[in-house]
Each structure stands twice: as structure tokens, then as C-alpha cells.
């Protein structure tokens, strides 16, 4: 018993000691530091890790070419577990490191919005590659969004349903999260505003559940011909399988989140025919895209999602802005970001006065077990 206590104490002490040591090891020659604040553990860890991989590819590309302003670039990684509390604490940590010029993150809108005021106050540039809440970029002029604006995505989706597919009765199924709530609401408004479409049902489902039977039953009973599914990758596979079982003819549409190989793995035949709007298409012939996709596959074992590509571009934008500002002065870099016109793999990107990226969309559809560009 005494020995057990001793071992336990020793293990804890070792963790603390090693941890402290790790915290103090900072390079002596000051590099340009960019923070990556994303979920590295927990339910959304896969996203965080994939964005990090994309960011690392971009940073290595720059470092090989001599860095920026003659300095090497270093990524500082923080795990916010997609929790507001952690993110608030991490934001404090980031702003207290004066060498950090910008942040890639955070994951969900709510979490990003908790951290954003701290960055704004301390003039640290935050670029989120996935925050979608309209309020996020309005928090300040250091806060940028390199993600599609969700209403723009739904404009494309609504256009597909009304004009390409010529369907009328639309159902919406959205996950019950902050993002899903907002996005689902926007989708509903756009569908209602379109004279060619009728919104027949709007269902919410729990993200933690894989059984969507009751919601599907209600959508089907309402006579939906097309269903807009507003969720993370995890929604589409089970939803498509369960829906196709009760209604094989149903037309499913997803948001850009649906553009990932995982949904084909998870959904199999059932996701055939699913539409999604994307700003990034991995099968593109563009050499820049090809190079990124190949490198990403090598490191991460799967194709990059649109969000990962946006993470890649976000780092590129920040570095390009530092280069064109010619200094690390925060105001100058910020202005450079705002006036940038960046030819990224997610299309040409520039920011409006609020800090939102303006993106062009392509339509993709799953056919024969892979995504193909749809030119309807």
C-alpha cells in the first residue's frame, strides 16, 4: 500500500516535471510564430488533426523556400478540445506570447467567438477556417473567416434543388448544435423565400445519436422530395442509409462538410447522388491542388476535406500578408490580410470589410462511389 502511494506520487511528479521542462523549451532565435488552436482530443479531434496537417504542409513549403522575412516559421499547437472554457484559457496563453502573430482556429463558432475578443484586444490576427456563425467576423477587425459563408452555400443548394433537379418539396434535417441551429434556420429561410420551393418539414437530430428513424419518418410523411442535411460528416452516412431504406428515391443534399471521403466510406451506396457545394475539389487537375492533395494523403492517409484545404490557405494568406507588409507590425499585417487577393487552392480569396472571405462554389455529386464535379 505504501509502495503504491509512492509509485503514484512518483508518476505524477514525473508528469509535472517533464511538463514544466517542455513548457520552458523555447528556441533562442526568434521565429515567426503562428498558433494553431483546434481540438486535438475529444470528439472533434479528427478535424483538428487534419487542419494541423494541412497547416504544417504550408509552413514547410515556406520554410523550405527560406521562411518569411528571412525568419523560419513555427507552429505552436494548442488543444482547445472544442470547449469554450479551454479556448478562453488558450487565448490568454496565446496573447501572452508576444511572438505569436496570428492564430488558425478555433473549430466551432461558439468557441471561436469566446476566444475572439481576447485576440482582438491584443491585436492577434485570428483566421478561422471553419467558423460559420455570422456574428464571428463582426467581433473585430483582427478577426477573419476563411470559410464559406453558410448562406452562400445554401444559395447554391437551393439553386440546385429548384433549377437543376426541379424538385419542389424540401425537408431540412439539422443537427442540434450551435452551428446546426443557425445553419438550419438560414436554410429554412432561403427555402421559404424561393417561390419554386416549399418547405415541408424541419427536423432536428442529436449529434450523439446515429438513429435518425423518427426524423426520417416525419420528413417522409411530410412528402419531402429533397432533403437538405445540415450536419458534420457523421450525419450523412447513417442518415442516407436509413432514409434510402424507407424512401429509395429521396434526393439528399449536403453542405460543404459533406465533401469528405469518410461519408462515402460510411454511407456506401446510400450516399450515391448526394449533392454538395464546395470551394475546394481534390480531384481537380490544378497542379497546386494536386501537390497538396498528394502530400496530405501521404501524411494523413486520406483525402483532404474542403475545411482542411481552407486551413492550408489560411496559413498561406497569413504568411503572404506578412511578406507583403514587410514587417511583423500587427497593424500592417492586419491591413495586408484585409487587402490581400490570394490565389488559393480553395479559389481566389479576398476579404470584405467585415473579414469574411468571398468564395466561388463548385457543385459536386457522388457518383460511382466518388465525388465528381457537377455541371448542371
Amino acid at each position, binding site marked *: *500500500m505504501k509502495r*503504491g*502511494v509512492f*509509485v*503514484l*506520487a512518483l508518476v*505524477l511528479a514525473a*508528469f*509535472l516535471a*517533464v*511538463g*514544466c521542462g*517542455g*513548457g520552458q523549451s523555447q528556441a533562442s532565435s526568434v521565429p515567426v510564430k503562428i498558433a494553431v488552436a483546434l481540438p*486535438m*482530443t475529444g470528439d472533434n479531434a479528427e478535424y483538428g488533426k487534419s487542419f494541423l496537417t494541412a497547416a504544417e504542409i504550408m509552413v514547410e513549403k515556406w520554410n523550405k523556400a527560406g521562411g518569411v522575412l528571412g525568419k523560419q516559421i513555427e507552429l505552436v*499547437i*494548442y*488543444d482547445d478540445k472544442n*470547449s*469554450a*472554457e479551454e479556448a*478562453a*484559457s488558450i487565448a*490568454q*496563453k496565446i*496573447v*501572452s506570447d508576444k511572438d505569436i502573430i496570428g492564430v488558425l482556429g478555433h473549430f466551432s463558432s*461558439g468557441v471561436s*467567438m*469566446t476566444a475572439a*475578443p481576447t485576440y482582438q484586444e491584443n491585436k492577434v490576427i485570428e483566421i478561422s477556417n471553419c467558423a460559420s456563425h455570422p*456574428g464571428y467576423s463582426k467581433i473585430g477587425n483582427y478577426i477573419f473567416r476563411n470559410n464559406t459563408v453558410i448562406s452562400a452555400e445554401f444559395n447554391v443548394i437551393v439553386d440546385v434543388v429548384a433549377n437543376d433537379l426541379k424538385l419542389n418539396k424540401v425537408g431540412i434535417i439539422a443537427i*442540434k*448544435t*450551435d452551428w*446546426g*441551429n*443557425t445553419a438550419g434556420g438560414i436554410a429554412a429561410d432561403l427555402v421559404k423565400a424561393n417561390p419554386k420551393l416549399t418547405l415541408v418539414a424541419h427536423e432536428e437530430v442529436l449529434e450523439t445519436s446515429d438513429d435518425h428513424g423518427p426524423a426520417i419518418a416525419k420528413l417522409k410523411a411530410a412528402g419531402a422530395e429533397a432533403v437538405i442535411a445540415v450536419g458534420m460528416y457523421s450525419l450523412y452516412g447513417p442518415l442516407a442509409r436509413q432514409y434510402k431504406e424507407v424512401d429509395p428515391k429521396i434526393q439528399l443534399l449536403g453542405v460543404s462538410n459533406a465533401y469528405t471521403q469518410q461519408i462515402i466510406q460510411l454511407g456506401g451506396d446510400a450516399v450515391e447522388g448526394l449533392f454538395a457545394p464546395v470551394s475546394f475539389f481534390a480531384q481537380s487537375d490544378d497542379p497546386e491542388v494536386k501537390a497538396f492533395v498528394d502530400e496530405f494523403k501521404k501524411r494523413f492517409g486520406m483525402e483532404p476535406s474542403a475545411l482542411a484545404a481552407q486551413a492550408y490557405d489560411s496559413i498561406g494568406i497569413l504568411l503572404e500578408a506578412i511578406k507583403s507588409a514587410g514587417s511583423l507590425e500587427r497593424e500592417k499585417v492586419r491591413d495586408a490580410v484585409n487587402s490581400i487577393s490570394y490565389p488559393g487552392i480553395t479559389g481566389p480569396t479576398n476579404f470584405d470589410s467585415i473579414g469574411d472571405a468571398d468564395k466561388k462554389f463548385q457543385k459536386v455529386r457522388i457518383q460511382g462511389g466518388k465525388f465528381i464535379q457537377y455541371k448542371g
Partner: protein
Amino acid sequence: MDITGRLERFFSQRRIFFFAVVIALLAALPAFGFSRYIMRICIVISIYSMLTLALNLVAGYTGQLSMGNGGFYAIGAYTATLLMINAGLSFWSSLVVAAAFAGISGFLLGLPTLRLKGSYLTIVTLGFGEIVRMILMNWDTVTNGTLGVRNIPLPSLFGVSLSFTNHGLYYLALVLTALVSVFCALVINSKVGRAFIAIREDEIAAQMMGIKTVRYKVLAFVLSATISGIAGAFYAPMVGYIDPNSFTFDISSQIISMAILGGLGTMRGMYFGAAALIVFPEVSRFLMDYRFVIYGLILVLMMRFRPQGLLGWRTRLPYRFGKVLERQLAAEGSLPPLL
């Protein structure tokens, strides 16, 4: 006498001095010019100290393991936030109402103790915590659902907003933790505290001594909930944003891990457990993936090798009669000899 006993005696004889030193150090902490990040960690530690002290009342002293304390924390945070934002109440009055409201919910959760014991009660508390979260998530009109509530104003005192910058939040956290600590100590060192411990030690024997066990168990829940509510009411403006996902089962489980690591049934263990498990993840980023595995290991190893917690020893100090009583006992020749 062994080392802990000697240390205890050493500190106990100079306790006023040591208390003064600790309080002075804590009060002077901002003067050392630590970064906001470090100060923030200190504030989080004090929040979790309050939460573990609250858990300690039900689980440590009364022996009723609650896995729903995250629910009280959430109720406190939401009540205070909604009152400040929708009703325009000041932080201080919101704090009081939030504490009271959490206390009432503690009373409701305490009622099943009329019929339930041990593991069953624990499960009901777990269910309570989850139901609170589901209500917060689905009662959109009041709680703003999954979107959460943003822009929660900072507390202000005499027109000065208490923030990180002026260390107002830090001092507020310190004062609240101190008040909660004193409160717990006063409760424990009275017939109420003795009744709590007696219930933990042997509920039937406690009944046979005339203790209204149901009433005391409910009281323990009410007190625990009130304190957790205070912690929540402070947490919300500190972070500035709350949503239902800030209050998952992980919070309750973390509070339990802290309390068990430090030693349920002691107050020193609560501060230690909170500090250790808040600092540990901050300094162990390299172990990121294994963090929760280690939380689990802590629980398993502690139960196996040191269920009373790292700081959970029985004190070797003599029972404190107080000067007056000691003199009286000595006068009639019945002053009990020391151990």
C-alpha cells in the same frame, strides 16, 4: 510519532502565522506580474476549489456520491447570466438569486434520498446532471439553446468593472473561495457537520442516535448545490460565454477525480486536487491524447492504493476544546490527557 503527525503539529502550532502567509501570498500574487494566462489558471483553480468543496459536503462528509454537481454549476451559471442579460440585474444580486435557485434544485435532487441509497442515488444524480443539460439545450426561448449566451458582462464594484486586467476577477474569485471555505469549515465544526459524518460512517446508527438523516442528507445537497451555483454564477461572466456543452458529464467526473485525488472528507485535499488536475493538463500538452486515460488511471489507482486521497489522513492533532473549556475541565480535574 511519524512524519505527517509531526508536520501537522508543527503547522498547527503556528497556524495563524501560516494562514497569514498564505493569504498574504495569494493577495500579493498579481504584484508578481504573472501573465494573464497564469492568473487565469489561478482563477480556474479557485472555481474548481469551490466546486470540490461543494462536492465534499455531500460526498466527502455525508457519503452520498453525487455525479450531478455539474448540473448545479450549470444552473448557477445560467441563472446568473440570464438575470444579468435579460433582467438587467447586477452581478451581485444575480449571484445571490443564482445561489438560491441552485439551492432549490439541490433540494429537489436531495428528495430522492428519502428512498435511495448508495449507487442508486449516484445514478439519479447523474441522470439529473444530464437532464439539466438537455433542458438547457432544448429550452431555446429561455436559454438560447445550443447557441449559448454570449457577451456576459463582467461584474462591477462601485462602478469599476472587475476584469483580468485590473485583477478584479482574481480578487473576486479569491474572496468567494475564502467565503465558501470559511462557510464549509463552520458547518463541519458543528452538530451539522458531525451529523453529516455520522451518516457517512453508519446511517442506521446515526438514526438510532436521533439524527434526522433524511433532513441532513437533503441539507447536504442544498448546501452543495448552493456553493456550486455560486461557482457557476462567477464562471459565466469570467468566461463571457456559456453554452450547454460547457456543462457536460465530464465536469462532474472531473470534480469527482479532483476530490478523490486530494482526499474526500478533508478540505485541504479539495484545494490540492483542484490545483493538481487544473495544472496537470496545462503542463502536459505532450500527453494530450492520454490526458483522459490518466484521469481514469488516477481514479483506479487511488481506489486501489489510497482511497482516502493523497492528503486524506486522519489528523493526529488533539480534539480542540477551546481555551475556556480546557480551563474549566482542568479545574474539575477531568482534562483528557493527550494521545
